């Protein structure tokens, strides 16, 4: 099976800044491909290059087995996208926006098609309301409808959960999973939150300062058998003795200043049990994946606390 998207040695240089540097990755048919990186890592620049909004400084992009620059029209006919905020014409209605972008995508929009799209994103009852009266979540959903109206095979979503409330984020996540699981679309979705990507994507790429850090299957990269558990206790010496006598002794990663052990996520209750039974005052066991640890280190500004990712 050939990849839907194949990016090779892609780079983009702005005056005084290399935004994307020698980036290569592939997206396979049916993937929900997570594109993860901190703000300014080069995610949006890469996505804009995939959509020909930005010209690359080097490298190549092939989509649907065709070179992008030479086959722009053919390729874009089969691509839907929402880049950052889904800004639409505020003085037009949802219906009018959808109809305009459908025609721009080369299709004659039938009423049933437009209504189906609006139903898919839960906006059928607001079809004839002007977009200026929509909430951010509604605009985001309408943006998705616009991206889908011409039935594209590949959907590119740049930070689709930005600005949404928790319910909106959950709905967006469900919609993306439906696109992949029920409609067979290939989705590239970017985020600066590992937890988001973990819940949506089957494959992912982490990018930092324009360069690829790691690419692979989410299940492998975030393997629960390789969870790092941080033991939070004032009795460090006693806890180390108990752990040293246990089966996890060989998997101790560090003992000072914090005790950190690599284990399967399912083993955490057992660890808690032996520590408590040994009379150790336990303040917490904090599970983190090594990849999450690494990603946190990228996104943490020294001296500033950063919230942990959702489990």
């Amino acid at each position: 099976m050939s990849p839907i998207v194949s990016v090779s040695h892609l780079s983009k240089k702005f005056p005084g800044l290399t935004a994307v540097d020698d980036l290569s990755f592939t997206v396979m048919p049916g993937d929900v491909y997570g594109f993860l990186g901190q703000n300014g890592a080069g995610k949006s620049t890469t996505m804009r290059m995939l959509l020909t909004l930005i010209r690359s400084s080097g490298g190549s992009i092939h989509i649907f087995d065709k070179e992008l620059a030479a086959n722009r029209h053919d390729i874009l006919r089969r691509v839907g996208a929402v880049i950052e905020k889904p800004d639409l014409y505020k003085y037009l209605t949802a219906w009018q926006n959808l109809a305009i972008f459908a025609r721009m995508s080369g299709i004659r929009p039938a009423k049933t098609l437009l209504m189906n799209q609006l139903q898919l994103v839960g906006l059928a009852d607001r079809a004839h309301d002007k977009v200026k009266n929509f909430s951010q979540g509604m605009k985001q959903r309408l943006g998705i409808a616009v991206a889908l109206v011409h039935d594209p095979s590949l959907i590119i979503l740049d930070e689709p959960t930005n600005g949404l409330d928790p319910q909106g984020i959950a709905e967006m996540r469900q919609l993306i999973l439906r696109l992949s699981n029920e409609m067979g679309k290939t989705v590239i979705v970017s985020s600066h939150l590992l937890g988001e990507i973990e819940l949506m994507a089957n494959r992912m790429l982490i990018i930092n300062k324009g360069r690829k850090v790691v690419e692979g299957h989410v299940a492998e990269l975030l393997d629960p058998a390789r969870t790092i558990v941080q033991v939070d206790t004032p009795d460090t010496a006693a806890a180390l003795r108990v752990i040293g006598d246990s089966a996890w002794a060989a998997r101790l990663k560090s003992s000072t200043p914090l005790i950190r052990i690599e284990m399967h996520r399912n083993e955490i209750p057992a660890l808690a049990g032996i520590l408590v039974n040994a009379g150790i005052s336990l303040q917490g066991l904090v599970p983190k994946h090594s990849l999450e640890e690494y990603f946190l280190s990228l996104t943490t500004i020294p001296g500033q606390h950063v919230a942990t990712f959702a489990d």
Partner: protein
Amino acid sequence: MWQLLQIELFKISRRPRTYIAFAVITALCLVFQFAFKMDGESYLKLMLQNVDLDFDLDKKKVINGYFMCYIILNTLLVQVPILVALIAGDSISGEANMGTLRLLLTKPFSRTQLILAKFIAAVIFTTMLLLWMAVSALVLSMLIFGVDDMMIFRVKGDASQILLIQQDDVVWRYVAAFGFATVALTVIAALALLLSVFAENSIGPIVASVCIVIVCTVISNINVPIIDKNIKPWLFTSDLVGWKGFFYIKVDEEGVPIRGSLENWPAIRNSLFKLLANIGVLLGTAIWVFRKKDVLS
């Protein structure tokens, strides 16, 4: 392309600001017509104070529909570029500002097609504006004031002149003048479109277009030989008022106007070519810049 143009026209028609221009023109025409209906003779007295007439002038006949339209055009065509800039200056920058530009450019058509669709839409808007002006300034004036021979007051060199055009020789001149004005205003549309490509909000290109027109118009009106010779020929604003040439009728040796004639057709033709060249350069530059532009908005 046709699809894109239809969409552009639909968007323009749905924006309230589009109708501001039509409302402004209607209001100004009505103000002129009301003022001249009430006290047009005072205006004539003021105009004729430096003209030695060797015949009696029927002031009521002079203030007719054709004369009124000329007076209105003379004043309004200087202001209309602002209204054209309001729409054309918003073409690309407005999309960038709204955030819709990045969505537009992910659709399967080229940037050249988008610019051309925007430009043609701006030209259609300009034409509609001038047609509306023709209705408000010419047709309405003809209904209010009636029609008669058209009298033009003109300063040529140090002398004041009165030109008389017979009423059955006027209409084609207005058709030609409105056609010329459409080309002239299309230069403004192309200029505003070019500036729009560089900006990410609408105010900048609109204000910049208007400023350029004002500065060039002021320079065009400085009557100093060195500017006349070296600068004015390069300014498009020198040619914007070329429409007036269609009303400068040729006179024979006895000073009698020759029906259907133009005093200086080559000058009008040259102005027209210069305006068209300006449009070509401005539009070509806009396409060239836009094709190379990274869309970061």
